[in-house]
């Protein structure tokens, strides 16, 4: 599979020049083609926001739904047809703010989907308000004296809930981000990849250089099966660790709990109504 198979002929991209989204788009296409996933087997589900526009620039099946609501349809799509690769992808405002409840419960549910969050610590499409991950003191037209809310930490939240795959990446590093994404997509369960990215228009604090200076990769000896260590790493905030924080291989994916999915991975659309069973059920009420 070639990354070009995900390219569209003529597209008019709505992102600002220099936006981190461009490299994420490129990384995604390369990752999927290297994993040999075809556009017809893939469903990209997104919410609303600049990041959530990613399916528009992708030749694949997509479901561009409501703000904050990418995870519920993604969960249902995977349940309804377990043969599809399903990715729920949006920005930090969409996934952690508007859709925060679904994020938390998807971790508990553990559907076999990949959750990619473009985290630029600011609202882009609505022009520069604070996001759930904005740092304290970050000034915006709404938070005029700077953000006072404690930033949402998706990594530690996920590990606290015993998520089955938790990673953080940086959009500026194509090679490493691709590696992380490959593992995330292959993981059988809910895999979270929080991708740090600069917003060139509305965040002049967390810039490309800032991320370079304020991140480091977990070293090769780091044990991603250790939840306590993962949690310790997740709350480091001087320099942000990058890489896979935690994997729990013991958790069953959500789909495996359902008979129809467990047996033969039969999509629900091939499910025939059993008239004889229905007739029996009605008779039982006589």
């Amino acid at each position, binding site marked *: 599979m070639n990354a070009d198979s995900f390219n569209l002929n003529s597209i008019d991209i709505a992102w600002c020049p220099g936006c981190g989204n461009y490299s994420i788009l490129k990384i995604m296409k390369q990752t999927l083609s290297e994993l040999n996933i075809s*556009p*017809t*087997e893939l*469903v990209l*589900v997104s919410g*609303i926001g600049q990041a959530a*526009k990613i*399916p*528009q620039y992708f*030749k*694949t*099946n*997509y*479901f*561009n*739904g*409501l703000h904050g*609501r990418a*995870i*519920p*349809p*993604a*969960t*249902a*799509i995977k*349940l*309804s*047809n377990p*043969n*599809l690769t399903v990715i729920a992808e949006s920005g930090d405002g969409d996934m952690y703010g508007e859709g925060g*409840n*679904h994020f*938390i*419960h998807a971790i508990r549910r553990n559907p076999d989907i990949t959750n990619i969050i473009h985290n630029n610590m600011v609202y882009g499409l609505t022009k520069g308000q604070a996001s759930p991950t904005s740092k304290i003191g970050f000034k915006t037209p709404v938070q005029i004296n700077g953000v006072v809310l404690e930033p949402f930490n998706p990594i530690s939240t996920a590990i606290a809930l015993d998520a089955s795959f938790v990673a953080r990446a940086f959009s500026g590093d194509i090679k490493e981000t691709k590696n992380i994404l490959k593992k995330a997509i292959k993981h059988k369960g809910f895999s979270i990849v929080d991708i740090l990215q600069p917003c060139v228009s509305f965040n002049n604090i967390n810039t490309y250089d800032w991320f370079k200076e304020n991140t480091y990769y977990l070293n090769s000896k780091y044990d991603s099966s250790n939840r306590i260590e993962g949690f310790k790493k997740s709350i480091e905030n001087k320099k942000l660790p990058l890489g896979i924080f935690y994997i729990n291989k013991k958790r069953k994916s959500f789909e495996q709990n*359902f*008979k*129809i999915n467990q047996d033969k991975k039969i*999509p*629900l*659309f091939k*499910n025939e*109504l*059993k*008239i004889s*069973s*229905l*007739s029996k*059920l*009605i008779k039982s*009420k*006589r």
Partner: protein
Amino acid sequence: MEDLSIVLCGEAGQGIQTVEKLFTRIIKKAGFNLFSTKEYMSRVRGGSNSTEIRISTKSVSAYIDRIDILITLNGDAIQHIQKRILKNTLIIGEEKNIKTKKNSKKIAFPIAKTAEEIGSKIYSNTVAVGILSSILGINKKILKDVTKEYFQNKKRDIINKNIKAAEKGYDLFKDLIEKEKINFKLNKPKSENDNILLNGAESIGLGAIAGGCNFISSYPMSPSTGVLTFLSKNSQDFNIIAEQAEDEISAINMVIGAWYAGARGMVTTSGGGYALMTEGISLAGMIESPVVIHLAQRPAPATGLPTRTEQGDLEHALYSSHGEFPKILFAPATLEDGFYLTQKAFDIADKYQIPVYILTDQYFIDSFYGIKDLDLNKIRKKNHFIKTTKNYKRYKLIKNGISPRGIPGYGSGLICVDSDEHDESGRITEDMEIRNKMVEKRLKKFSEIQKEIIPPELIGKKDYKYLIIGWGSNYHLIKEAIVNIDDEKIAHLHFRQVFPIHEDTLKFLKKADKAIMIENNATSQFSKLIRQQTGYEIKNRILQYNGLPFSVETLIKEIKKIIGDKL
């Protein structure tokens, strides 16, 4: 006597439900028809709840005020049900539980003591079932067999003690019947009653299965939860994915996702939960997704009266969700409707790619009665999606506005759907010409669905003078009231599809000297809708919004008030 009305009244947690379930099985086995309905408080313990069971050799399917036999299980019961106690009401209960100034016949019976002698107070309910069975003169063997069957999953000792409790109640009370000269003679049924005994929730659940439902995601909320539990219970046998969502927003978005991937999904909810779903319904409108919504109404605003009944969400269902797009609203009038209309909802949602509602209420959901049969040959189960080809466009502009719906992973096309305005291929656009075409495409479905509107049912003679209009769950109540008034000049027009309404509606209304609307809300929402759709104003309205269903007696009284008592 034509029929007998028995009411059980006690507090939550006392086991009225056990009495209801066991006794109704016995009645049915003995060959009687029955109707039962309950009113209960929003609490798990205490308070006062009551269940009405009507028994007859004829078909019964409506709530009445009259009580022939009242069984009181606690001291507050009498107070709770005071207004419905008549001179002829026989009150049975422990000495301390039957105290009332009302001049009715009272029989004190040591129910708890009888139960304790068998082993424990917990057998009180079964003793009560024995008492009721002896009043009806039910064969003791039926009582014994059904009790045994009912408790079959319990330990042997418990089964035996329950049988003993039932028999003891039966025998001891039989002596009292003779002594007190109690006589509730009903015509004896000829054979075992082989009707299907269902409640509203089950009728919707069975209809959903018949409609090919294989996905339900919902958040529990009275009175809609019964449908979720019914489908969950049967999920293994029918390969249904049943999931309790974290909130109603998730539920509706999951169900829309399921349809996108080729499943047939539904949500079940009530007013407040539905309010959270309205953005999702708008999404279904935009991406032209089928979706089936069961909305079991209860009194609102806000939390309202959580366990009680109202027809107050007609406008909410109709006008909620931003933007302009077609929808269809069914309101089952009977249990048969619960089945066939829910089945039809799946078919029609799929065919027209629109949201379809099943509007019920607590009264409908919690009422049981027997129905003759459900005809599975009437089921039209056909998937309307297609296998796509390479250049497939999800929103291809075609004459009737209904672009063939593809699903991902079936065929070589790509399925792109977007909550933003989109072009034929499903991609975001702000091209105003395409915007116009897409709006018009979505609205064209309105004229398509006109072809399939269910006409209202006219009960009575065609040359009526008075036309009584109802919708949804009031069907049997209105019908029985009119039978009682017994006047050929009255006819009943009942709607089971409340939006869009049938084009004959105005013709029916114009023929009447007086049209009277009956609905369970305060502002006569259906009258307003009819006026908006036809220009005809129904001025006579019988409305009730205290949280209870109409009783047949209330309707008789109110109808007579409007048309004059003389007739």
